[in-house]
């Protein structure tokens, strides 16, 4: 058993017998999982000229991501606090096998985490979009990653619909108009009270040329540089997250 920052009550190591018993109980708590096609990585040249690799994250990277997300939970601006807090819980649940069919994509620039998106499969045909957290701001990283998430659901996971709600009214309104999303008010989204909106296969392919970008395959050497995720200077990151706003008059 590896101990991480978050095993606060570490205690004594377990005996093999204890471990076996816990495994049986543990197995009952773990949800069955659908097979999920991997997300083929892609490279996006940002406005700054920097290249962002969008790739699937693994559960081994969750602890690193949690350390980066944790301070963002206290940022009372643009709904960063609630998005970070919920994402923290979702990624932890994914690592500890307490959520079914979750996936996580990351945007990485030279090893540095630019943003995170996640979601899960409700069943083979229906997806549930969770969150989009942008750490590198001012370069439309959030828009790129949200589009990558939709791409994953429809093109690689082969789904018909993605159910979506937003915490931020502005984000909600932008997506509503940009894609545009349709009402799906008979579905209860997992993120709480608001009724769901939906992106269908048809609307996705209509918006694709306009909203989904990136180049595949990613050159080996570039892809290699997207591991491991480097922790940014958190203080610098927080100032940047707070200062840069992407709206125009």
């Amino acid at each position, binding site marked *: 058993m590896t101990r991480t920052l978050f095993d606060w009550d570490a205690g004594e190591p377990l005996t093999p017998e204890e471990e076996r018993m816990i495994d049986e109980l543990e197995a009952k708590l773990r949800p069955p999982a659908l097979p999920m096609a991997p997300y083929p990585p892609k490279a996006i040249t940002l406005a700054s000229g920097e290249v962002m690799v969008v790739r699937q994250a693994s559960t081994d990277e969750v602890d690193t991501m949690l350390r980066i997300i944790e301070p963002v939970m206290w940022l009372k601006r643009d709904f960063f606090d609630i998005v970070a807090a919920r994402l923290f819980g979702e990624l932890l649940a994914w690592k500890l096998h307490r959520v079914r069919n979750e996936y996580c994509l990351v945007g990485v620039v030279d090893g540095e985490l630019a943003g995170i998106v996640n979601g899960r499969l409700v069943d083979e045909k229906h997806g549930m979009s969770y969150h989009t957290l942008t750490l590198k701001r001012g370069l439309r990283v959030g828009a790129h990653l949200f589009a990558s998430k939709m791409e994953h659901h429809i093109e690689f996971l082969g789904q018909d619909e993605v159910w979506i709600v937003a915490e931020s009214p502005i984000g909600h309104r932008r997506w509503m*108009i*940009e894609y*545009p999303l349709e009402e799906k008010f008979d579905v209860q989204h997992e993120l709480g009270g608001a009724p769901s909106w939906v992106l269908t296969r048809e609307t996705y392919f209509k918006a694709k040329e306009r909203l989904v970008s990136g180049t595949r395959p990613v050159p080996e050497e570039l892809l290699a540089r997207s591991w491991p995720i480097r922790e940014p200077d958190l203080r610098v990151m927080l100032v940047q997250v707070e200062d840069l706003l992407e709206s*125009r*008059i």
Partner: protein
Amino acid sequence: MAGTVDAARCRACARLTYPTHYYCPACGGREFEPVPIEGEGTLLTWTRVHALPLDYEQRYITLGIVELDMGIRATGRLEMGDPAIGRRERA
């Protein structure tokens, strides 16, 4: 473009203005009669605007300035699908 919008013709010098002013820009007159904006014109410039204020549900709207044959210019919504500078347009 605009449906029932009026320009103003100065009763003193017959100069047509749109929008209206308190003094006629040509002679300083203050008496005007309304003249409906109508007829054809030439598109001077246009834009598709994606940054819209509140209350707009569209992704964008198309706006343009038309030089009307009746002798004024007007700014408004364009209904044509493929605007281009110099194209003919109905008011």
